[in-house]
């Protein structure tokens, strides 16, 4: 065990390289989750599409809209058509399930790592905090895109396995892929919400609970908006208003809704950066929380000032 005598070789790492490298490690850490969620949802979506062949005859003439309470569960309009069936069975559950994943991931990425202590060695590296948050956001965004791409591929494959006799209306394979990928802004809204709440709340648990409440209210509030006038008036507040699988299948991506969701995510990301920039990491504070020095009646500090010697 001799003394180390190696000369130092200087190779400089740029900011972009640092972010890309961190992004790589973030994605690497999520790779099995991406594969698991991607394949799981792909099997689910593909199976439902294939099932339409068996159900189409049974659904002929069936009008679920006669039962208004079904609106509570989601958009079941045109359930007997291919677009309506796939929308109700795939494109209602897909964003909800992935929103759950992104909430888990979004709150886990800052708040979870902070609570486990894993953030401390990373935050002590020469990386600005905003870069850390942006990179975590990008990792989440790419992870969701990969999952959706796997699901989209499965929907296309499933579509081509349907016999020609099955009436899919105007829906083509590409429409299924587009409708799948079009859920990305809505899902990212919840992911960014989780990221922001993870940066803002003192604990992951409180962040995840709040994001889940927003998810539940956002989903059922939008469904009930057609039944309850009051909710109809504030429907614009519910994130699920901004995505409809059926409309996307039949009419393509709604650009306005997509932009609204992206703008909301951008605002939440900004808030996440500001919160994380401000907060005391590792101690579970609120971002803007700063303790005050206890002051005695005389106006001096509670603990007498110490004379630290050097």
């Amino acid at each position, binding site marked *: *065990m001799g*003394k*180390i005598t*190696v*000369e*130092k*070789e*200087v*190779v*400089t*790492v740029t900011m972009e*390289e*640092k972010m890309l*490298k*961190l992004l790589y*490690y973030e994605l690497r*850490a999520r790779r099995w989750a991406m594969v698991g969620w991607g394949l799981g949802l792909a099997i689910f979506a593909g199976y439902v599409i294939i099932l339409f062949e068996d159900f189409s005859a049974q659904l002929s003439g069936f009008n679920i809209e006669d039962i208004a309470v079904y609106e509570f569960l989601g958009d079941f309009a045109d359930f007997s058509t291919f677009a309506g069936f796939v929308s109700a069975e795939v494109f209602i559950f897909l964003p909800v399930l992935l929103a759950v994943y992104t909430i888990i991931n979004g709150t886990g990425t800052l708040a979870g790592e902070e609570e*486990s*202590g*894993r953030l*401390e*060695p*990373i*935050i*002590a*590296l*020469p*990386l*600005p905090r905003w870069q850390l948050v942006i990179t975590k956001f990008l990792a989440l965004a790419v992870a969701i895109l990969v999952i959706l791409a796997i699901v989209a591929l499965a929907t296309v494959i499933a579509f081509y396995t349907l016999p020609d006799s099955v009436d899919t209306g105007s829906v083509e394979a590409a429409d299924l892929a587009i409708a799948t990928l079009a859920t990305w802004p809505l899902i990212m809204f919840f992911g960014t919400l989780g990221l922001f709440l993870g940066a803002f709340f003192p604990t992951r648990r409180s962040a995840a609970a709040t994001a889940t409440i927003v998810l539940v209210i956002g989903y059922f509030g939008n469904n009930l908006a057609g039944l309850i006038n009051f909710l109809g008036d504030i429907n614009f507040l519910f994130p699920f208003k901004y995505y409809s699988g059926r409309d996307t299948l039949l009419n393509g991506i709604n650009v306005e809704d997509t932009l609204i969701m992206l703008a909301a995510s951008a605002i939440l990301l900004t808030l996440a950066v500001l919160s994380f920039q401000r907060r*005391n*990491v*590792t*101690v579970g*504070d609120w971002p803007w929380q*700063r*303790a*005050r*020095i*206890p002051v005695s009646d005389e106006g001096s*500090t509670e*603990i*007498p*000032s*110490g*004379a*630290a*010697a*050097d």
Partner: protein
Amino acid sequence: MSNNVIETQGLTVYYGKHRGIVDLDLKVNKGEVFGFLGPNGAGKTTTLRVLMDIIRPTKGKAKIFGLDCQKQGVKIRERVAYLPGELSLPPNMRGHQFLDMVDALRVERSDSKFRGELCERLNFDASRRIRDYSSGNKQKLGLVASLMGRSELLVLDEATIGLDPLVQQTVLQIIDETRQEGRTIFFCSHILSEVQSVCDRVGIIRDGRLIKVESVDTLTAQPFHRLRMRFEVMPEPGIFVLDGVRELERADNTLVLEVQQNLSTVMELAAPYKILGLETEPITLEEVFLAFYGKNNRRKRSSHGDNGGENA
């Protein structure tokens, strides 16, 4: 230009109503190993976290290389390596992957040969998954991560915790070599022996306050022993009431004494009771600290302000 690598002025951190550190004035010189000592909860980690801009001070200023820790944190961290005291690492990564990641996020890539030599010296296998490492191996990984960049300043919090004695010695040797290269080490610990062996100066922190900054020579010049003696016949209480002798423990024919003075008298008094076993035990910093400053000093500080134990 100031020779101070680290400088804090009136640094104060509160967590709600709880005290972190209070009015900490500290200077660490370039090229020295500065030991930052104190019992658990004294405020060591809080100080380090403020220096690394992980938490923000309630009051006061902290500078490293003359740069403000809050406003120029990134610039500072480009030149500093930090080993947290409670090291937590991503369990699914392999050791070398974690090192690659840390390397990639630093401004300058480390020398792979140097990194390999560090692993070899610490007897560390970087190819395994972190979840499979023992706590000692995780600590080794943290050490390699903080040492491999050859930063100008190393901030090490309990660097040898969980390591076996041989590796502890190697770590202390590496720290000594680091000093010889002219780099600075801020070395947090509560183990006196390792502080004695590597540090030039020490700062003692208690209850969030820096009590004293002292050269190690002065600190170690204090005669101080802790004796664990097992007797055939237990000596009666009070027999060792001597200046500089304190009875710490008495049970099952075993007596533990803290001895600063009158060691030979203690041995003479003990001999008639037939000593069956005699051990000297490692002394924690807290014990030295208490021996130095004692409860009276503490009371004095509370009522009149701290004189830093100048008479100790």
